[in-house]
């Protein structure tokens, strides 16, 4: 049976266990005079039986599915005649793919040596056996454990607290999964980054002001030496993000203030959903809006003013990105401002403060931590945004602070480095991981700083 089907079967068994557990607890309760003589409600007895049946079976299933491939490989390779046993890792993977190709029928048996054909047969047999064994084991565990859980139902059994504690661990496991994933991502990026710094010196990467990663892939190619200075990329990212925030933060914040403090219910009911619709537009659409409408407009205006502007500019990308981010800022700020108690507003108004004074001096400081949270989210959106920049700001890594020139960002470069034909040990490809690591570090730093600021200036209301 396939693991997916087996998974479903296990769930069905768990549901069955629930039903039986529920029924048994009810029938146990009957002679005692009703379910109020049970220690817990029938639901908990059923849930306990279901958890007993489901969790161990799923654990077995998961472990088996995770390790069966490796184990089978070891057995197959171990069974090969000595002259065929691979020496290097590269040979081993080649051999294994050959064997599995034969096994799946993609490679006809006649094309390979006899031992390999034999190995392929063995591989297939082992796979079938493993699947069989897994099915039997999982079903057996589910049924046995479920039965045990069912059998041990007693009126005095405190199933409620058992279920509660199992659930607590389940929730913890989910939380841990998210953390583990983050740790996994960090490690995978970190290893490649270290490899990259083996090829390109750390100082050159950090302080270099030249970025042209097009190195030769093969010996016969003619290409530049390659320069990996990240400064132009980070200044490009900063420039575009700054432009985006200059657009998004004031507009978003002021519209949030308007919506929460000044607009009446009708206006708010119309404007808020419309504003939030901005967030639903795909970034590609923003991208061609920026590239085909805004960027030419900016360069036309600049030309008519006698300023030299390129057809793709940081201003176009940043401005459109800012518009995209407005709903993030406004929606989050609006929620936070609304959460400030009405009593504070009344207190300020009753002292003769105007609405804007109240806003500036009481509501805004009280809402500041939440607003900062929204702005931070917007900043990370801006830093991570790729599509608009690719389309509207270009790919040229210019080190400039002029918003009318074309620039590029870290994320755009990561995309261009990793798309197309790649070789995974060239500095060019590894550079993407180094950039990713740097991006991660800088957003982390940003978060820490912002958290400190918020903690220092927050005005807590209770």
């Amino acid at each position: 049976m396939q693991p997916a089907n087996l998974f479903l079967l296990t769930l069905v068994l768990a549901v069955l266990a629930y039903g039986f557990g529920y029924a048994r607890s009810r029938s146990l309760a009957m002679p005692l005079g009703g379910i109020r003589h049970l220690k817990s409600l029938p639901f908990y007895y059923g849930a306990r039986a279901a958890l007993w049946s489901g969790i161990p079976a799923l654990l077995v299933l998961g472990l088996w599915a995770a390790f069966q491939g490796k184990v089978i490989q070891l057995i197959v390779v171990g069974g090969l005649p000595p002259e065929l046993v691979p020496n290097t890792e590269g040979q081993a993977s080649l051999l294994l793919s050959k064997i599995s190709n034969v096994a799946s029928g993609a490679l006809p048996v006649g094309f390979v040596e006899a031992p390999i054909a034999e190995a392929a047969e063995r591989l297939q047999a082992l796979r079938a056996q493993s699947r069989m064994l897994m099915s039997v084991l999982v079903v057996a565990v589910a049924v046995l454990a479920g039965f045990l859980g069912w059998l041990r139902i007693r009126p005095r059994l405190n199933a409620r607290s058992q279920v509660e504690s199992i659930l607590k661990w389940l929730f913890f496991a989910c939380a841990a999964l998210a953390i583990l994933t983050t740790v996994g991502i960090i490690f995978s990026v970190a290893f490649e980054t270290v490899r990259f710094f083996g090829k390109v010196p750390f100082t050159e990467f950090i302080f270099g002001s030249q970025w042209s990663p097009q190195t030769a892939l093969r010996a016969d190619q003619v290409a530049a030496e390659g320069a990996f200075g990240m400064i132009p990329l980070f200044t490009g990212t900063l420039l575009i993000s700054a432009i985006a925030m200059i657009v998004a933060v004031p507009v978003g914040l002021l519209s949030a203030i308007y919506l929460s403090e000044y607009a009446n219910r009708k206006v708010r009911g119309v404007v808020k959903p419309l504003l939030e619709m901005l967030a639903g537009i795909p970034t590609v659409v923003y991208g061609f809006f920026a590239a085909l409408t805004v960027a030419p407009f900016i360069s036309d205006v600049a030309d008519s003013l006698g300023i030299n502007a390129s057809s793709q500019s940081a201003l176009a990308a940043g401005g459109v990105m800012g518009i995209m981010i407005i709903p993030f800022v406004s929606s989050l700020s609006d929620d936070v401002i609304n959460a400030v108690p009405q009593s504070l507003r009344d207190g300020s108004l009753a002292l003769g403060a105007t609405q804007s004074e109240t806003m500036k001096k009481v509501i805004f400081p009280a809402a500041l931590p939440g607003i900062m949270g929204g702005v931070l989210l917007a900043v990370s959106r801006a830093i991570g945004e790729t599509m608009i920049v690719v389309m509207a700001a270009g790919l040229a890594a210019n080190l400039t602070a002029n918003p009318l020139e074309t620039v590029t960002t870290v994320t755009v470069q990561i995309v261009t480095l990793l798309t197309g034909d790649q070789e995974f040990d060239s500095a060019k490809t590894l550079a993407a991981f180094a950039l990713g690591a740097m991006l991660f570090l800088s957003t982390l730093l940003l978060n820490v700083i912002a958290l400190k600021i918020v903690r220092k200036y927050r005005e807590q209301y209770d």
Partner: protein
Amino acid sequence: MNTMNSSITSEASPQDEATVPVPESKPTDTVIEEGKTVGKPYSDDAKFKLRDVEVFYGESRAIKKISLDIARNEVIAFIGPSGCGKSTFLRCLNRMNDSIDICRVKGSLQLDDQDIYDSKRDVVELRARVGMVFQKPNPFPKSIYDNVAYGPRIHGLANRKSDLDEIVENSLRKAGLWEEVKDRLDATATGMSGGQQQRLCIARAIAVSPEVVLMDEPCSALDPIATAKVEELIAELSESYTIVIVTHSMQQAARVSHRTAYFHLGHLVEVNETNKVFTSPEHELTESYITGRFG
């Protein structure tokens, strides 16, 4: 600002009015004649002159033709069962009802012979003259000093830091809070006890030197000791301010006020000197209320 203040909704909104538990005994049979108030509603030295005041929430009438004078430097207590409109009426005096979209006020309301609801009236100036203390202490989440200095700052009452310091100290002294907080003026106000917070709110209100202080059940969230302190404070403040206090506690009304006004279902039933209201009420509804037969 379209969110309604919860205390208003519970106090005087039309829905609540309909659900006020009215016992089947005598009081309901009593017909209240609209605009008719027994006792002494008028005064020769009126700070507020209020005539035929009506307040509407949407279609329903929360206040029904109330006429009343509030005299200079008197303490007047508004009492009455929940939902009778006393808070709504109080909030008309400094136009705090303005922030409620559906609320309309009719009639003539004058402060020192000037119309409060005149369209040319500067609400900021009005509220600087008529301060307010709320049911629940609502200090700003700022330092104690900044709370008291808030009003003087927005009205530009102090030119120098030393002037501001003086205003803050005086206000806190008047509120009987100075000795307790003089060493921690920079501490955040939300860390104080409930009673201290309410006295801070009173200090905040008197820091802009208003002529009138409105108090909307100022002690309902406080324990008896804090309540006693606030009541003492009201007695002291009555020397220099006109005070209008809404209260649910008849003992409190009896202790602190010179005159007492009894509200019932949006009507002003009886106004008289406090001891008279509590010893020999003229209206049978007032009598039923103060003797605890309903309310």
